[in-house]
């Protein structure tokens, strides 16, 4: 399960919208129980509508920040601009860490579709995404 606030979800989607027409991307900081503490935007150094790569400088800075703050790099998010929010063969082949959460947002429809997956030994499993609102919690899957 991945748990983030409404503001964090909006920040994640905004990062991906700003990158259009290219894929957008960034990293998630948080705790091992899946609670996100911050959404870290990255430029897509691949500058592509079909592939993404986190800026290596952002990667180093985020891992160092995680050490300093006593949290983990929980995972990565990126957008699919013309395909569903589901990991592609490239996403699976290049998934760097089986403990990570892989968040995808798709712009196929007007309302961005946001989903989260675990990828372990090439096997994809979708997980719940819980949005912590002020008055209610919303789970999507």
């Amino acid at each position, binding site marked *: 399960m991945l748990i983030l606030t409404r503001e964090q979800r909006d920040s994640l989607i905004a990062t991906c919208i700003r990158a259009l027409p290219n*894929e957008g*991307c960034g*990293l998630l900081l948080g705790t091992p129980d899946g609670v996100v503490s911050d959404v870290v935007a990255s430029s897509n150094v*691949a500058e*592509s509508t*079909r*592939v*993404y*790569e*986190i800026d*290596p*400088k952002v*990667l*180093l800075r985020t*891992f160092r920040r995680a050490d300093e703050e006593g949290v983990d790099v929980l995972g*990565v998010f*990126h957008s*699919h*601009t*013309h*395909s569903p929010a589901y*990991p*592609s*063969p*490239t*996403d699976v082949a*290049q*998934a*760097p*860490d*089986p*403990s990570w959460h892989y968040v995808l947002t798709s712009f196929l429809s007007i309302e961005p579709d946001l989903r989260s997956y675990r990828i372990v030994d090439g096997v994809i499993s979708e997980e719940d995404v819980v949005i912590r609102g002020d008055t209610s919690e919303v789970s999507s899957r």
Partner: protein
Amino acid sequence: MSATLRIPTVLRPAVGGQATLEVEGATIGEVLKNVTAQYPSVTGQLLAEDGSLHRFLNVYVNDDDVRYIGGVDAPVKDDDEITLLPAVAGGCH
């Protein structure tokens, strides 16, 4: 030269679970060859067969991405901190 090598989580099982290693070598290429010799399980995960850096590995000396300071020939000095991080990339196809 003796430097500290920070190992990413995914590679730690291949180096006995260690998060950092004390490493020797005057260049990044030498350091990574020495680590591979000491821990054969990392063969192919640090360097490509032609001796270049693995395509999906980011290597930093202190704050510098080694791709911009000489790649495998990037110099390593005493007390440098070398960080390995897997490249984070993907795509829609």
